[in-house]
């Protein structure tokens, strides 16, 4: 990797760093109670909860397991479970 003349970096390149390896707990979604309010997507600090085929899904490559989505879901659809590795 050759350096340019100053620390100038291309956009969005942190995505090569998969922070999913950080977590201990992972979010488990129960879609029966989900009203699609989108609060889980709104408050995710990584911005990795998105609507995929009508269901809110966390991108596990990046999910740090912070648990904000589970804490905020008004219908308690999300449970943080210990991730089996």
């Amino acid at each position, binding site marked *: 990797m050759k*350096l*340019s*003349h*100053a*620390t*100038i*970096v*291309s*956009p969005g390149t942190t995505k090569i760093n998969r922070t999913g390896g950080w977590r201990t707990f992972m979010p488990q979604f129960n879609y029966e109670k989900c009203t699609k309010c989108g609060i889980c997507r709104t408050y995710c600090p990584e911005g990795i909860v998105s609507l995929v085929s009508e269901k809110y899904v966390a991108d596990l490559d990046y999910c740090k397991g912070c648990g904000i989505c589970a804490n905020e879901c008004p219908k308690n659809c999300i449970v943080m479970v210990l991730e089996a590795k």
Partner: protein
Amino acid sequence: MKKMKVVEGAYAVAHAAKVCKPHVICAYPITPQTHIAECLSQFKADGELTGESINVESEFAALSCLIGASAIGARTYSATSSQGLAMMHEALFNASGMRFPIVITVVNRAMSAPINIWNDHQDSISQRDTGWIQLYAENVQEAADMTAQAYKIAENKNVLMPAMVCMDGFILSHVFEPVVLLEQDITDDFLPPYDPEYYLDPKNPMTFGALGDPSVYTEYRYLQDKAMENALEVIEKTSMEFNDMYGRYYGGLIDGYRLDDAEIVIAAMGSIIGTLKDTVDELRTEGIIAGILKIRSFRPFPKKEVRRIAKGAGIIVAIDKNISLGTGEGALCTEIKACLHSAGIDTPVFGSMLGHGGRDVSKEVIEKLVYRAGDMMKHGLKEENEFTDLRRELL
């Protein structure tokens, strides 16, 4: 014969800056730079500036605004002195590390404390490690012309380092001299528009100023050092190009006056060169074979040129209007000695510090200095350095 106009030094420099068409100017007033800031404000009020100017709240803000502007791709200009330059200290490193070719005029003034508004070089010399090109002007014409040269050097793709054009406070800033005001039509040719490879652009969103951790920091410093090295050649070439187009030449990295056969070489920077030239002419009539090594570029330091001249000299007197406290001598003296030593050149170097805090340097003081240098040349250095114009009766 070009048309000359009698103007104040500050006006000539402000005019030159205007002619270089910076997009953004910020100057915070400080004596003895103030007239430059005021001239620029008057240009703005009369609709003569092609760019914008900001009445910033401090020198630190001035340089910071220019860093932001340069990141957008703008050509930028500021001027300051002494405390103002010191206040920019942090931002000087930042501008250099981010490789923004900002140009500022430093109207040299002593550093507080004690508070003193008159000329010496402590301000710019104290910033010699910040990664800025430093050029020192002998007279008003050169100070103005150096401004255009500074942009050309700084914006060169193999350099991309910021530059400060140093001119002695009051001595050059407040003097009225006939000068050829920097010609707009020639400058439009000499100085093409600033064309950076990277700049902040929503259509091409890049990140500037990322964290450089231990695995890459050294290499970035190395690249800056290489840029300074490249600047050595660029400064020489630019001086010659300037001469081709404007018909005015001041030397490149250095200039010499009656140097070819000089036994006693006086090395100095800035307006004192004028006094030295008169003194050397008189000394020559007395049979003293003295000459002047005018250092134009202090950063990058012209090691090759200094070594070449030192080889033929009997002694070098290094004049410093500054002191690096704790070494007992001024920076020019130290740097000359270092560059000679590492090339195995044993020409003796005597360090003379004078003119601190604006103390007037007379021909008599220089003559006495040169007589002693002649003596030391024959009988060896008794001391390494001295405060040449010290008033012992006060101590």
